[in-house]
Structure formats: C-alpha cells, structure tokens
C-alpha cells in the first residue's frame, strides 16, 4: 500500500471517528447552550446570554433537597460497596475453590446481568412482604447498594486478573506476612481498579432511576426523579440549567481523577 493510500484511509477514518465524537457530545453541548439562553423556549435561534434559569434553579428548594438526598445515597452506596465489593473480589480471585468461584461470580455480577427494573420490582414486593414497605429510606438505600455492587466487584476483579501474582509470591518468600503483602503489594496494584469501581458506583447510584422510582419513600425524591416529575409539566430551560450544572460537576470529577490515577487506568 502506498503512503498516499494510507493518508486517504487515515483521513476517512478520522472523519468517521470525528462524526461519532460529535454525535456523543452534541446533545450535551446543546443542553448547555440552551441553559444560558435568555429565551423562554428550548429552541433555536439563541436570543442572548442569561443566567436567569440558574437563578430559577437555585431558588427551587425541591431541586436542592433532591440533590442532597441523591449525594447522600450515592456516598453511602460507594463506601459500603468499596469495602465489601473489594473484599469479595479478592476472595473470589484468590481463595474460592474452582467450583464455588463460578457461581459466586454469577451471583456477584447478577444485579448487572438482570434488568435493573426487575430488581426494583423484586425489592418492592420483598419489602412489602416483610413489612418494611417503602416508608423508610432504608429500602431505596439497599436497592442502590445492590444494583451498584457489581461495578466495584468487576473493576477490582479485572485489576486482580491483570496483576501478576508472582509479585505476591516474591514478597511472601522474602518474609512478608499476608497482611503486609496485601497492604504493600496487592492493594497498590489494584488501587486503580478500586478507584474506578467506586467512581462508577457513585455515578451510577446518582443516575439510576428505576430503583428510586419504585422504592422511594414518600416525599423523598432523588434528583433524577425530581427532574422527571418536573419535565412532565414544564418543558423550560430550568431543566437545562440542572443539566449544565451536572455537566460542570462531572468535568470537575473527571479532572480530579485524571490528575490522581489517570483516566487511562479505566478498566472493565
């Protein structure tokens, strides 16, 4: 193949990839543009720069309450799963017998393999049957923990799988105890997996809708639920302002991760 052909194919490929990147970003950029638009409607042409929709957002107590509630649920899910998911991944990769390992893997990734809406329905019936109902926040919290568990488990498992065990054996043969080996060899090696898993856990918990829809206790809406309810009756740029705000927060989070562990460590 001549070098001329190569550049043509390279350019075509770049055009294709560029178009897909635009497809990925277009709706998000659009929402951001419209959130700063002074016009009444979510449509073009843009009329002028304005922060009025952000003012309308920050004066809305329901959105602020919902945001805090979502953050609380996501934070608790992340902490719980960060601990028990990592431990379970290490057990399955290092200690489980071959026969047990397979069904443990199926169980541990189960919430991801079955539709989230089904887990929500199952938990709704279950809590109703054992008499808890949906009167308390504990139902929705447990739902979030269950559904986001596989993200930590899978990321840590994958980090363990890619990690060369002979390093652990070398440490052992040099006289380090199991706890020392875990803290000084295994943990640093799987740290990117844990961080990625926890990040996903938090973001997915913040984002999931079905569990919250069916298990929410009265008067406690998560942010996605509040937005969903809002959009039923209002189709105005306040919703776009919420979107913009969550995009800014996301970019901040991504920058932090890029600076600390590096985005390239992302694994599934």
């Amino acid at each position, binding site marked *: 193949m001549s070098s001329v052909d190569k550049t043509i194919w390279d350019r075509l490929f770049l055009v294709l990839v560029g178009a897909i990147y635009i497809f*990925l970003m277009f709706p998000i950029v659009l929402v951001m543009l419209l959130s700063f638009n002074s016009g009444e409607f979510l449509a073009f042409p843009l009329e002028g720069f304005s922060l009025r929709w952000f003012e309308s957002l920050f004066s809305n107590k329901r959105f602020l309450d919902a945001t805090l509630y979502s953050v609380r649920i996501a934070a608790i899910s992340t902490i719980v799963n960060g601990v028990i*998911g990592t*431990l379970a991944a290490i057990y399955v990769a290092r200690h489980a017998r071959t026969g047990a390992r397979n069904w443990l893997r199926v169980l541990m990734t189960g919430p991801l393999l*079955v539709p989230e809406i089904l887990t929500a329905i199952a938990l709704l019936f279950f809590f109703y049957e054992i008499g808890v109902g949906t009167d308390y926040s504990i139902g929705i919290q447990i739902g979030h923990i269950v559904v986001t568990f596989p993200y930590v488990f899978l990321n840590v498992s994958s980090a363990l799988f890619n990690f060369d065990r002979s390093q652990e054996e070398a440490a052992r043969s040099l006289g380090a105890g199991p706890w020392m080996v875990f803290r000084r060899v295994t943990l640093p090696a799987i740290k990117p997996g844990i961080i990625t898993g926890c990040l996903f856990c938090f973001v997915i918990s913040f984002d999931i809708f079905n569990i919250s829809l069916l298990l929410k206790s009265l008067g406690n809406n998560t942010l996605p639920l509040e937005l969903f309810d809002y959009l039923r009756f209002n189709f105005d740029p306040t919703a*776009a302002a919420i979107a913009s705000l969550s995009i800014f927060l996301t970019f901040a989070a*991504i920058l932090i991760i890029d600076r600390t562990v590096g985005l390239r460590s992302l694994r599934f």
Partner: protein
Amino acid sequence: MSAQAPARVESSGRGSGTWMVVPALALLVLFFALPYLSILTMSLREASTRAVYADGFTIAHYTTALGDGFIWGILGRTLMIGTIVTVLALLLGYPVAYHLARSRSRWTSLLYIFVLSPLLVGLVVRTFAWMIILSNNGVANQALRGLGLIDFPLQLMNNTLGVTIALTHVFLPFIILPLLGNLQAISPDLAMASRSLGASRLRTFLKVTLPLSLPGIQAGTILVFVLSISAYVTPAMLGGSGGRTMSVLVVQYLIDSFRWPAGAALAIIMASVAIIFVSLYLRLTARAMRRLP
C-alpha cells in the same frame, strides 16, 4: 484485622479468607436472590380489587399474558429495539475505541472526556436533550426545514425510531469502555509484525486485531443489550404509546393500575426471555472464540 491471625494458622490456605466474602454474600442473597422469589410468588397470587393482591394462588396471569397478542407485540418490539441498539452501538463504538486506544495525541484526555461525559451526565438529562432535538418543533426538524428538505415536521419521537436513536447514544459509552480496555491490552507489536510480514492494513485488522478484541465485543454487547431492553426512562419519556416497551408496560401495571400479580407475571416473562437471549448469545460467541487460531 484480627481475623487474619487465625487465618494464617490454618494450614489449608484456600478456605482461609471466607470472612471476606460473607458481607457481600449476605447482601446479595438477602436483598437480591431472595427478593426474586417474591416476584415468582407474587406472579402466582390471585388478583384482588381491594388490595394489591389476594391470598389465593393461580396461574391465570401467565395464561392471560401469553395468550395476548398485544403483549407479544410489545415483547417483540422490546427485543427488536435492544438488538438494533446493540448493533448500532457496536458499529459506532468500535471505531472510537480503536482510535482512542491508538491515540498518542496530547488531546487524548479531552477525547476520554468526550466518551465519558455522556455516561456521567445522567439518563434523565440525556433523554431530555433528545426530546429537545427530536420533538416536532425540535432542533432536528428546525434544521431540516431550514435546509428546505421537508415542509412538514417529521415524527421523530413518540415512536420506536426516537427510542432507538436516544438509547444508542445513551448506552454508547458502555460498549466503548470495555472495548477500549481490551484493545489497549493488545500489544501493538502484533499488528506491526503482521504488517511487516506483508499483510495489508485491512487483513491485519480482520485477522489480528478484531479476533483479539472479541472478548471486549462480547462484554460490551451484552451490557448494551441488557441495558437497552430493560431501559425505562428513555422509552417512558420518548416512546409515547407507539414506542412502549415491556418495562414501561410493567411499571404501568404496578404503579398506575396496581395490578401487582399480573405485573409480576409480565416481569417474569420478560426476565426469562432476556436470560434465554443472553445465554444463547454467550454460547454462540464462546464457540466463535474457541474456533479462533
């Protein structure tokens, strides 16, 4: 970490870390496996007009649902949307993952953000963005009319088309990320070796890179398929009655009409179909991967 000390005394070694799995096991058995039995028992309960269910048992909800052409239609539509979205996501996601895995540019971090941010923005927000684009007075119709291509707005939402477009966008990162991890793990030396032995770029891709990335393709496609057939938000917001899927129907049964046993039966039918689909797919792809040299 006092549990570690006795664990070391045990000579068996393998079973020594059992305590590590106990919390996760308890969580998933108690609040995941056990509740699924509740769907089963609920689906066999008799319907009641006074409460969400009555005490007696019956299989009537299954026979009614399976004899109903309307429900078969919705099930078929759900599976069709799931399949199309999965294929589209693979076709659009592979080039991006391939490009990102090879990219050495200093803009790579920015491109990562492009891929990640739709994932982190939130389902309701992203679907809302697609409502702005696809509605009758939306951006897409405005643009097409501005270009003089159409006189009347096209019906882009409240049907299967809108749901398919939005779901493809919504779940695209879920196929790019596993593929990316997989492609990054493939040593570039392999492709280089193939090229230096005289294989063309296309042949190198088809015979070296593509087969080695099959595990990533498998993981990503299953993820996207399961996510898209079970999606509730996007079809509920964009589907209208013309794009209604199983999830939307089940939630209507549970929340709007309080027919819990009948809704449970529908949920079981949907779950069984999903399990059959995924296990067939796993078997097929596993065979394809074993046949590789």
